[in-house]
């Protein structure tokens, strides 16, 4: 896990005049599952939006596979796979149209058969030719994840992607991501509130508070917390949040 896929340094961003990110620094290496934690409204989604180029950055640098998101956005986005929020999916298009259009927008010459197999594993195939408007939250989430996996991206950015997924699909997705990570095909950056994922799958976890990364745990530290039992990670998070607020 040496090759850096994502580097974020001194990132500042605002919503209008309200500063949301106040100097975020983090890096994600290939084969790494990076979990972003934190209470609601601390800037996790804003950070992901800045990383994926959806939102303008006020100061700082975002670099994906060595390409600056500010200076070379088109080059940087070639390496990205983003699962947008389910409500941002176009309701008037079918799942198939979304996938085909997204693949064309990513400049892919063809769609790998592997994606069709993943769709089948996630039980998404019967919904492929229905309008997104008719999808449930979980089905939308599956489509968003499939869009993120299109074109074998080097960095997969997921924002609460496991919300609304049924347990079987969530397990399938976790296994798929694990296989990709162990083959060093990609890195995963996931914003989540699910400590279960941190406990069982994360290689690195970061706690965001007040627009900054307040505390970061590496693979060894997470393994240590895991050995403390069920409440290990929860207690560590509470302790980190408590020490920051004092």
């Amino acid at each position, binding site marked *: 896990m040496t090759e850096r896929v994502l580097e974020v340094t001194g990132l500042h961003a605002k919503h209008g005049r309200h500063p949301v990110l106040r100097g975020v620094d983090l890096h994600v290496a290939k084969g790494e599952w990076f979990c972003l934690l934190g209470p609601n409204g601390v800037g996790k989604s804003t950070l992901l939006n800045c990383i*994926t*180029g*959806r939102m303008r950055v006020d100061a700082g640098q975002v670099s994906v596979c060595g390409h600056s998101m500010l200076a070379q*956005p*088109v*080059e940087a*986005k*070639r390496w*990205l796979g*983003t699962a*947008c929020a389910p409500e*941002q*999916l*176009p309701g*008037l*298009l079918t799942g*198939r*149209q*979304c*996938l*085909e*259009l*997204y*693949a*064309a*927008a*990513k*400049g*892919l*010459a*063809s*769609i790998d*058969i592997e*994606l*069709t197999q993943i*769709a*089948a594993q996630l039980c998404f*195939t*019967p*919904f*492929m*030719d*229905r*309008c997104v*408007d*008719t*999808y*449930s939250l979980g*089905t939308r989430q599956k489509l968003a994840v499939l869009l993120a996996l299109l074109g074998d991206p080097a960095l997969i*950015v997921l924002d609460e992607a496991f919300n609304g997924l049924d347990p079987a699909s969530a397990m399938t997705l976790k296994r798929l991501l694990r296989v990709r990570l162990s083959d060093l095909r990609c890195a995963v950056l996931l914003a989540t509130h699910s400590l279960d994922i941190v406990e069982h799958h994360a290689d690195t976890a970061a706690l965001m508070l007040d627009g900054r990364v307040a505390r970061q745990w590496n693979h060894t530290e997470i393994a240590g917390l895991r050995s403390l039992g069920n409440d290990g990670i929860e207690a560590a998070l509470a302790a980190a949040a408590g020490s920051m607020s004092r």
Partner: protein
Amino acid sequence: MRRAGRIEAIGVATLIVALAVAAIFIAGRFDLTAWPATLRDYWLLIFALATLHSSTSVARRHRRAVANWPESWLAAAPLPSASVRLAHAIDSFTTLVVQYLPACFLLLAIAAAGRNLHAAKIPLIALTVGCVAGSIVAWRWPGRHRHETREASRYTPSMAATASALQPSDRALSHWPIARAISTGRPENARLLFLFVTLFAMQSGISALEGLVVLLLWTLAGYLVSLLIAVVSVANEAARWLRSTPLRWMGFALPLVRRALLHQAIGTTIAAAGTVATGVSWLQALSVSGLWLILVIVTSSVASLLSYRP
């Protein structure tokens, strides 16, 4: 029938009855008694309007009745299919009947006020045949309901999986504005406006053919304007959705406007031909069409340019 639908139907019926009463009163004071005789010359227009109104009204209610049936508390009851069909028929036709009867009453009342019931015969036949024809068409081909296809559950088995090959394509971006225009401005929603447009057209004393052309132009204008608005709103939505992809402006703007521009060009050509048929000169029709197309191209380009960000 749903409560809102029933209230709507009662409201429309009350309005028409009130209009009929007012018509009898006004017909006595002002001379409206010649109306049935005037309407006789417009039988084709009345027939077209009645067919259009009944087909869209019945089709919409039929689709809704069929789509809502599985959620009915009687859905699991062992009812014969004929009873279910009858329930759907009552649901689909009640509003039309409630509108049709007062309209006939209004016509007969005005004719009776002029002591010339015979004059109302042809308009009544045109109205009745139009309503029946439209209803038959709507009942036979109600169209597909957007939410007709339901998600699979252990009660409703899933459709057969269709895992045909996926190919990168920007066609969906071209279809998107069309889908938006149709979903926001469904033709059936404009059917009451058709009535007013036709009445105004008839008031100005034009022929039935010209009245039909006015209807056609009204429909086309509504579609073309809603398509232009759809391009602008889809440009925003699509740009936001595709912002994290390495899509360039040309790759975004061209597919976005391609099909919409084709529809605009065809629609404008038909509209120009329609206006020429009503006596407008070719030059005038062409200049108005050209101006509209320029407006469409400029608006579409500016919308895609403003919404796109690399």
